[in-house]
């Protein structure tokens, strides 16, 4: 579903990702872990086309994302092409990024009506279903600012799902929440993971969640994947010294 091929990403002199290659199968749930600054979030932002690669290619569902084919050459993708491929990808942000100038309903129907071309009725029905799913059915006409952080994040998840994406990117979605709200959001994500076949890439510091949600965990350090294994293996018997240290630090904090 997702292929990174020798991807390099720099911010100025700072190399965030070096020669990174990996694949994600359709429907797979992959969690990216590692110390901050190791490039995990950058991977999600590259997939969402919020950043551009410096070299290498990224493709999603067999189509290039970072590049497009022009004649017989591969050139960096332009805005129009990006938008086409981007439609298959959804993202939930650490800070929710709900639009404050719209109600919950407005946030949910905006892209389905304007990008997918759904009718108002269809989009509204979809919005209501998704809000019921995330347990906020009665908040459809509320304003984002009237909701708690946990509720806002549920709305943001529903908003991403309203586009029926093939790929869902979760960028530290519980990091900005009060501790008592984290469990609810994680449970929702588990339910979504079980009930759909969406490919999910997830950056998180919640190791318990990573363990039982993921099919695969990738440990990042210094812009490279240093370990890539099923969660059972990573969490109980990691090969790499850095992984052991990292997990110890996170689990005993």
């Amino acid at each position: 579903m997702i292929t990174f091929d020798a991807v390099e990403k720099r911010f100025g002199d700072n190399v965030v990702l070096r020669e990174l290659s990996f694949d994600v199968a359709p429907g797979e749930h992959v969690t990216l872990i590692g110390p901050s600054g190791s490039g995990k979030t950058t991977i999600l932002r590259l997939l969402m086309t919020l950043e551009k690669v410096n070299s290498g290619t990224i493709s999603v569902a067999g189509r290039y994302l970072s590049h497009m084919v022009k004649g017989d050459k591969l050139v960096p993708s332009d805005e129009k092409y990006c938008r086409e491929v981007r439609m298959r990808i959804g993202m939930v942000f650490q800070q929710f990024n709900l639009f404050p100038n719209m109600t919950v309903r407005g946030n949910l129907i905006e892209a389905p009506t304007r990008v997918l071309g759904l009718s108002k009725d269809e989009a509204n029905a979809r919005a209501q279903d998704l809000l019921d799913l995330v347990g906020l059915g009665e908040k459809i006409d509320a304003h984002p600012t009237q909701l708690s952080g946990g509720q806002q994040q549920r709305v943001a998840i529903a908003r991403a799902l309203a586009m029926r994406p093939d790929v869902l990117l979760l960028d530290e979605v519980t990091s900005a929440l009060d501790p008592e709200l984290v469990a609810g959001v994680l449970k929702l994500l588990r339910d979504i993971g079980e009930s759909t076949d969406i490919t999910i890439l997830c950056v998180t510091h919640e190791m318990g969640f990573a363990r039982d949600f993921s099919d695969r965990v990738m440990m990042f350090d210094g812009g490279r994947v240093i370990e890539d294994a099923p969660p059972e293996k990573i969490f109980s018997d990691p090969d790499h010294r850095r992984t052991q240290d990292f997990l110890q630090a996170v689990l005993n904090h």
Partner: protein
Amino acid sequence: MSDNLSRIVPVLLQGLPPTVIATVGGIVLTILLSVPAGLLLLSSRRWVRVLVRIYVEGFRGTSEVVQLFWIYFVLPVLIGFQLVPLWAGVLVLGLNHGAYGAEIVRGAVQSVPRAQYEGAIALSLSPAQRMRRVIFPQALVEMLPPMNNLFIQLLKSTAILALITVPEVTRQARDVLIPNYGDDTILIFGLVFLVYLVLAAILTALMRLAERIASRRVGRRPSRAARVAARAAGPGVSDRMAGI
């Protein structure tokens, strides 16, 4: 004194329509110019930015009186026909304040958090949809308090139309009343001040209403702090002054 009051007031009120037309016309033109100009100042194309910059700096850098005289006395020579004084005035008011307004619009759009763009990109909205549906409505809340100041400034500037014979309030006072009711200068000026104060109050009330509506749409209360900042920021201050 009071027996003259009944003769002075009607003369002043005759000046009201030109003052109001100039104010409303100037505001409409200001909005029509400042929104596109402000957005174009953020264009990715350099030549577009340079072109709009020339307009903005050209009008902010020269005196409004010079602009008025230029458009009223020089432009007709170039285009071959005389402008109606009132419309020449509206044109200058709009062009001048539109240049200041462009900076307000640009600053307000830039103040919308980056995360809002990213949220809109993640939903595959097109650049135009992002601006129209997500960014601009939020920027609008930011631009209204400084726009209120700008419009008050414009209202006050309508007085300079007296210099090109527009019979608005100030000219009525200066050219009709002062020569005829020399003993009542204080009364006359008191009334003139009152007219502008009332107009300014009406304008502010309307803008507050707009602020309230726009704020409610983004789930906020109108910010008193923003208004105070706009008041203290002054003319030509490009970015809202941080910390002040």
